[in-house]
């Protein structure tokens, strides 16, 4: 809506309407007193009106003056006008005035809230005042025509005040904006309430600012709405600050929500009631923060009862001293699980230094605590490890040394500055050992490999031991060497075990070797012996070759002895054991050795009156006694200086029983050895044979190896090195132990401890011995089978006379568990059938085993009908024969459960 400003006074409408421009005049300034304008001004205000313009003219050619004055309207009423006069240079060099007047109130002058007659000075002052306010101020009439504004607003629009007053937004800003503003204006006027709005606007210079505009209606003295007044403030900075504050709040909230724990604010005091708890409190305690704050679940009650006092006191002391506190204690969460927590907090004080709140943070350190515990366990394990442990940095400098190393070597951390000293501390050779190993050690470490060695070490008490040293690189996450870990272990026991194993393997190898070569070797020896004898026989008595041939036979005889020893050694574990009196075996052995062996050697046999029962292979123990006695005799002969008579010594053999109450070390066990490796005699009852000689004796080195196969101190032509190895093997197989007491020049005593057979000597009517009746036409077969059965613990009654056998059986069939009939090669089948029938008739419960040549099915059936339980083909295989006898004799003791007849093929 354009509003024309006429060149001459235009009296548009005297029916005054408040706030609407009523009149506009243009006139030269010097014509003000005579112009039509002044005629409309109330005579009482004319002088002030002129004076205002004169004052404005003094300000400059472009000044503006505002004057509130009474005006005369055609209907004779007096109304209050507000006139704005803008001075402007005219085209003819004079100053022209342009005055716009509009009614601001009707009737009587302004209400008492307004100055009754604001003087020109007041108006100027008011304009100066609002111009000095940095906020944008403007006011409009009800038609949204600008009635006035301050300088800040004019600057904001980039125009002069006079360019704004009397115009509307449509003249000043783009239409869409203008319509928007006018709509807001209309709303303010309609609702008659102040409106606040914020909007981004752009200044002419390009600045974008956020304006907070408050528009409020203003009223005339009668309460009529005269227009609206607006104050707009640049709140860009404030908005930005607000935005930042909100962002900061949001960040803080997010941060606290993400915290692995609970941030809190609490009232001071022992109760510690929470004023705030972050979301993390939920995860920490299982209770929602609202519950924690509302005292549904006071935080104090969640603390482990044992820890409560400590927590209270610690916090109280810290607050008292005005310093932060850190605590570690236990919480019990909603699920009843105990958690280890860590808390840090500080008192918040007011200006007077009084604590008004406590703020802090509580976090769950249970995983840490667990890790810490396992770390402690780990470090305890290292500290108490049975292995000496050193931890060093990447340069090998000691960081840690465990106590075991100190006890092992007697060295402490002070004397073990680095890994070299560690090795030197272990090694018996000291620094010499390090020199040998240094290069190899670091070469291995450089390749990220573990270096290990075993070397002879020396304990603080000087005792030697075998040390296994391992040095391993510890790598960091990037694969770089960060630390070294070195361990030293006493592996003496293992080394000794290995040594024993090596010896045992050697013995086993000898056995295999002996078995393998003995047959061929014996054939060869037979040939050598045979041909040399044949040759000797053919030679004349005075032949010079005879002596050579004698040497051949002597050598062959020696070889024969060797092979026999080898075979004895190899055969040892396979023989059957018998319950015998050890004294009998010793008697027999000494009798066999005969006087020749002991010629020139005094000997005595000392046996107690009581039997010494053992369960052994008699032939083997016999061999043990023979070998020990031979050795004893040899020792005496060795001790006899050449040329002297051989009566300087004696051999004593004693046999007795012994009860060992507590395990005891053997004399031959090395006191320097660890306990576990000592040869010892366990609790039990033993049968002992001691062979004592007064011969040359043995030093420790010899004693150590005396039982090793092929180890001998005898001249090449006398010893095989197998005698004591055989003894050792046999005694070990019998669960026995050998002890040796010897010193060079002081003779030797060797004692064999064999487990005493507590079940005693076999009784004649042994309940568990199976009695077998053995019948064969062949005496040799009866003898062989009888021996075989007896060796397996059976009681065999054998006869070649069938009538006698049947008579024996018939007298007391219950005494027998099995009848064995062995066919004589010449024996007809009918005779065996008759015999079987006769035995079956005498007692059908005793099984009959028939050993006969291959038979056909008809014969088998016939034998079955005759009462034979089982048949075996001849020739007999000892193994299956014994197995069959054992099975049948057992079955026979259980009447009614006899197996069906069977024919076993070999």
């Amino acid at each position: 809506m354009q509003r024309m400003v006429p060149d001459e006074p235009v009296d548009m409408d005297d029916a005054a309407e408040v706030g609407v421009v009523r009149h506009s005049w243009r006139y030269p300034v010097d014509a003000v007193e005579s112009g039509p304008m002044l005629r409309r001004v109330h005579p009482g205000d004319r002088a002030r009106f002129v004076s205002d313009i004169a004052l404005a003219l003094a300000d400059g050619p472009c000044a503006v003056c505002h004057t509130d004055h009474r005006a005369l309207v055609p209907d004779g009423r007096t109304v209050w006008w507000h006139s704005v006069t803008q001075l402007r240079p005219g085209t003819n060099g004079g100053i022209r005035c342009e005055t716009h007047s509009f009614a601001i109130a009707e009737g009587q002058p302004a209400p008492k809230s307004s100055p009754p007659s604001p003087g020109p000075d007041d108006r100027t002052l008011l304009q100066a005042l609002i111009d000095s306010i940095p906020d944008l101020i403007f006011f409009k009439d009800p038609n949204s025509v600008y009635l006035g504004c301050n300088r800040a607003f004019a600057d904001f629009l980039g125009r002069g005040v006079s360019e704004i007053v009397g115009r509307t937004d449509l003249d000043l800003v783009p239409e869409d904006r203008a319509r928007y503003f006018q709509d807001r204006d209309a709303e303010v006027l309609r609702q008659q309430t102040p409106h606040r709005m914020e909007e981004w606007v752009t200044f002419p210079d390009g600045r974008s600012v956020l304006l907070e505009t408050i528009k409020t209606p203003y009223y005339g003295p009668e309460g009529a709405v005269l227009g609206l007044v607006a104050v707009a403030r640049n709140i860009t900075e404030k908005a930005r600050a607000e935005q930042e504050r909100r962002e900061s709040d949001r960040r803080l909230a997010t941060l606290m929500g993400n915290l692995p724990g609970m941030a809190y604010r609490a009232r001071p005091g022992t109760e510690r009631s929470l004023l705030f708890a972050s979301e993390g409190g939920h995860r920490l305690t299982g209770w929602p923060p609202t519950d924690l704050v509302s005292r549904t679940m006071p935080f104090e009650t969640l603390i482990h009862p044992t820890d409560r006092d400590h927590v209270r006191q610690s916090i109280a002391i810290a607050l008292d001293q005005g310093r932060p506190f850190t605590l570690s204690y236990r919480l019990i969460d909603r699920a009843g699980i105990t958690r280890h927590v860590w808390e840090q907090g500080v008192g918040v004080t007011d200006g007077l230094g009084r604590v008004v709140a406590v703020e802090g943070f509580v976090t769950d350190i249970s995983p840490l605590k667990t890790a810490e515990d396992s770390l402690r366990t780990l470090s305890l394990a290292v500290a108490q490890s049975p292995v000496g442990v050193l931890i060093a940095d990447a340069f090998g400098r000691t960081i840690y040394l465990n106590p075991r190393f100190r006890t092992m070597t007697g060295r402490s951390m002070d004397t073990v500055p680095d890994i070299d000293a560690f090795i030197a501390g272990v090694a018996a050779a000291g620094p010499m050992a390090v020199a040998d190993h240094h290069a190899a050690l670091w070469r291995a470490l450089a390749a990220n490999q573990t270096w290990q060695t075993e070397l002879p070490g020396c304990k603080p008490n000087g005792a030697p031991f075998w040390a296994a040293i391992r040095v391993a690189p510890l790598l960091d996450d990037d694969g770089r060497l960060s630390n070294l870990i070195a361990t030293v272990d006493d592996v003496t026991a293992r080394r000794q075990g290995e040594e024993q194993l090596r010896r045992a393997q050697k013995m086993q190898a000898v056995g295999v070797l002996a078995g393998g070569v003995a047959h061929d070797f014996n054939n060869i020896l037979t040939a050598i012996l045979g041909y040399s004898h044949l040759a000797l026989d053919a030679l004349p008595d005075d032949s010079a070759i005879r002596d050579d041939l004698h040497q051949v036979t002597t050598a062959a005889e020696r070889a024969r002895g060797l092979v026999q020893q080898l075979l004895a050694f190899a055969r040892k574990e396979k023989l059957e054991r018998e319950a015998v009196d050890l004294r009998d075996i010793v008697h027999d052995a000494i009798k066999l050795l005969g006087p020749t062996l002991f010629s020139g050697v005094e000997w005595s046999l000392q046996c107690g009156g009581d039997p010494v029962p053992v369960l052994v292979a008699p032939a083997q123990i016999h061999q043990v006694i023979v070998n020990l006695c031979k050795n004893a005799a040899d020792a005496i002969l060795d001790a006899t200086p050449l040329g002297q008579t051989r009566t300087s010594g004696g051999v004593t053999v004693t046999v007795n029983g012994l009860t060992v109450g507590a395990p005891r070390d053997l004399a031959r066990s090395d006191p320097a050895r660890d306990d576990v490796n000592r040869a010892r005699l366990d609790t039990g009852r033993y049968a002992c044979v001691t062979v004592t000689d007064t011969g040359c004796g043995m030093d420790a080195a010899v004693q150590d190896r005396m039982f090793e196969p092929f180890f001998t101190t005898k001249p090449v032509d006398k010893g095989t090195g197998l005698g004591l190895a055989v003894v050792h093997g046999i005694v070990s197989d019998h669960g026995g132990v050998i002890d040796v007491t010897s010193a060079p020049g002081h003779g030797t005593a060797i004692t064999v401890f064999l487990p005493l057979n507590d079940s005693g000597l076999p009784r004649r009517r042994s309940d568990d011995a199976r009695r077998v009746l053995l019948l064969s036409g062949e005496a040799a077969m009866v003898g062989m089978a009888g021996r075989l059965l007896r060796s397996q613990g059976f009681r065999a009654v054998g006869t070649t006379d069938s009538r006698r056998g049947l008579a024996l059986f018939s007298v007391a069939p219950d005494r027998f568990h099995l009848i064995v009939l062995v066919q004589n090669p010449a024996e007809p089948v009918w005779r065996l059938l008759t015999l079987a029938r006769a035995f079956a008739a005498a007692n059908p419960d005793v099984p009959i085993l028939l050993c006969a040549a291959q038979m056909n099915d008809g014969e088998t059936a016939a034998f079955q009908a005759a009462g034979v339980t089982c048949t075996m083909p001849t020739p007999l295989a000892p193994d299956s024969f014994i197995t069959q006898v054992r099975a049948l004799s057992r079955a026979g003791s259980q009447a009614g459960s006899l197996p069906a007849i069977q024919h076993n093929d070999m």
Partner: protein
Amino acid sequence: MASVLIIDDDDMVRTMLLRTVTRGGHEAFGARDGVEGMTRFRDHPADLVITDIFMPNQEGLATIMELRRVKPDLKIIAISGGGARASLDVLPVAEALGAQRTLRKPFTPTEVIEAINDVLGL
């Protein structure tokens, strides 16, 4: 003078025994194993058989039993130097099966002659 069959797979031993027996004044002939020994024995029944135990084809114990079946009163001397299974001492078994004497290798010619004369009751 007796007729003696010597069964041994080892040529050296067999030859030595043949010579020893011959020189001892007896007639001697040999075989390499039990099978050959039985054949020779059937062709020419001997008064005495000296047999090794561990032999290929047919070993000594079976041979002894077979010989006994063919001629129950045959005199037999079993000889052995042990087998690959050293634990097996078979000479007592041979004796049980009917060998009158056993000789453990190695032995001397004298021991052989004495055994022969003893068994034959000479």
